[in-house]
């Protein structure tokens, strides 16, 4: 673990950019070795999951890469389990959460970025503090509320809950992003007779697409991967979402590693696609949020 940290100061210093910085061959080898090692550690666990998913059930733990590749795990998961139902449940919850979350976060971020209004500072604090509310304190009352409303086992309970997790952070990120868009654009819009909402919709939202992409990505990932509420609110095989469903393959009583790996791969693919789509905006979006907040 310590290996990648050790060489930190040196390469940092040996000239980040510019024509005069020549690395010695030794430093260059060190740089690549460190990065190759780090990349291998980063890639290996998911890769191994992928490899294992193609092994026959009886050989889940063999160290051969793939001796007899087979799709039996996949067909088993798709045909004999509730996987598709879980997938549908998750997809629905996540889609609704993302659309609502992004919209709400964008308007808030814009208002906080552009207007100085009474209540702005408390609001900023509120958004930050909400981040801190541990699920542990909210989950019991939320469970009771959902139970009273008859929302347990209903997707709406998760949608509503996930909004509270995603929106505060997203609003912060969007604020940082809107801060990087020159105010002159708003002023130009106003001169042309747009009201603040019009300015926001017609001028700023199109410019903020990278930030919106990042926010959507974050909301998607948060909702797709949330475990605690999903495990607590949803019971009954066909109502589960993916995080709770996956647990049923490998728990105290059963350990169907073949089914688990195949299901895990199928869960990871959509997330990876969304990630690939959002990732070129990630650096810009996150840094805007981080540096300007």
């Amino acid at each position: 673990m310590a290996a990648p940290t050790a060489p930190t100061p040196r390469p940092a210093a040996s000239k980040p950019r510019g024509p005069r910085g020549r690395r010695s061959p030794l430093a260059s080898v060190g740089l690549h070795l460190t990065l190759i090692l780090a990349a291998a550690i980063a890639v290996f666990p998911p890769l191994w999951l992928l490899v294992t998913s193609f092994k026959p059930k009886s050989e889940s733990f063999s160290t051969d890469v793939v001796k007899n590749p087979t799709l039996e795990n996949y067909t088993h998961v798709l045909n004999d389990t509730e996987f598709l139902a879980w997938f549908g449940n998750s997809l629905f919850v996540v889609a609704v959460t993302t659309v609502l979350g992004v919209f709400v976060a964008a308007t808030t971020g814009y208002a906080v970025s552009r207007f100085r209004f009474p209540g702005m500072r408390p609001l900023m604090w509120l958004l930050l503090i909400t981040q801190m509310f541990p699920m542990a304190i909210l989950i019991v009352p939320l469970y009771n509320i959902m139970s009273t409303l008859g929302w347990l086992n209903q997707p709406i309970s998760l949608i509503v809950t996930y909004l509270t997790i995603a929106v505060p952070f997203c609003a912060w990120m969007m604020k940082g992003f809107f801060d990087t868009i020159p105010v002159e654009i708003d002023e130009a819009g106003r001169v042309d007779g747009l009201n603040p909402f019009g300015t926001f919709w017609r001028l700023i939202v199109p410019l903020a697409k990278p930030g919106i992409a990042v926010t959507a990505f974050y909301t998607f990932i948060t909702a797709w991967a949330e475990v605690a509420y999903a495990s607590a609110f949803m019971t009954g095989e066909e109502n589960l979402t993916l995080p709770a469903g996956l647990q049923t393959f490998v728990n105290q009583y059963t350990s169907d590693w073949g089914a688990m790996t195949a299901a895990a791969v199928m869960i990871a693919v959509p997330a990876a696609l969304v990630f690939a789509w959002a990732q070129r905006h990630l650096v810009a979006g996150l840094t805007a949020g981080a540096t300007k907040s």
Partner: protein
Amino acid sequence: MAVDTSRPAEPAGDAHRAPGRARKPGSTAHGTPGRLRRALSTHWYAWAMVAPVVVVIGLIVGYPLGRGVYLSLTDADESNVERTIGVNHIPATYDVVGLDNFTAVLEDGVFWDRLIWTVTWTVSCVGITFALGLGLAVLLNRQFKGRTLYRSLLILPWAVPAFVSVFAWRLLYNEKNGILNKILDGGGIDAVPWLNDPTMAKVSVIAVNVWLGVPFMLVALLGGLQSIPGELYEAAEMDGASPWQRFRHITLPGLRSVSSTVVLLSTIWTFNMFPVIFLLTRGGPGDSTEILVTYAYRLSFVNSPRDFAGASTWGVLILIILMLFAVVYRRSLRKQGEVW
């Protein structure tokens, strides 16, 4: 508490602080009767835009928070809360017991054990993640072939949902058959009970959480590094600053605003990191890897009978700890001249 900032009250309450910053100078006159109306006409669109968030947070965070605090003062558990069985509606029968839950929890060693481990867990996770993230970001911030490829590979863990990764790690950690032990076996080392020995389990959960957290750090810090102007380094080099001096006096200060934000965020996230521990070890062996959050969850959703009051008490204590942390952190940043 800040949660229930009822909006009508804000203009009045905030006017003492805000007038200098208000765009329109309308709120300068103290105690003018039309102030509220003027504030409304000036700011209504701003308020309209933030209203959804305030409503959402108020209803779904504020109300449950209030309930949670209330429950922590009662003896509610599975058997006496309001519930419906079939067609029968059974009203709640729990009582308010004041601060009894808190004294019970604080006098019990379990809470302090869990707190110590939670703090250890948070500090080591954030510390190691930050160091690795910074190291890799610095490496990636230079010009060389294959930079984009390395970056894509390094942020790959981020593309995989955390709970999926945790299951992947369970596969690797498997004591009898997992690949980690097979590799060690090849090197002639005895199998390590990764998740079955209290100490190893702690190391294992930290390793997984670091693995999960590095991509975020890396991306954020890389962005921060790229915003430091290259001329600074050139000038420093002209003046004969050593590599280490340049790192100390240009890179670190240049990263300060990014790093203070990511450290705060990842501290809070790690402190409350539920899935890694819940899915990897279920808090075990024994309760050796149980952090405060997973313990509170266990009280209300795993143990039977479900101890709602106890879980809420733990929740309130966790919240208090985090708020104290945020206040101290913010103050120390203020001293360094940060402004958020």
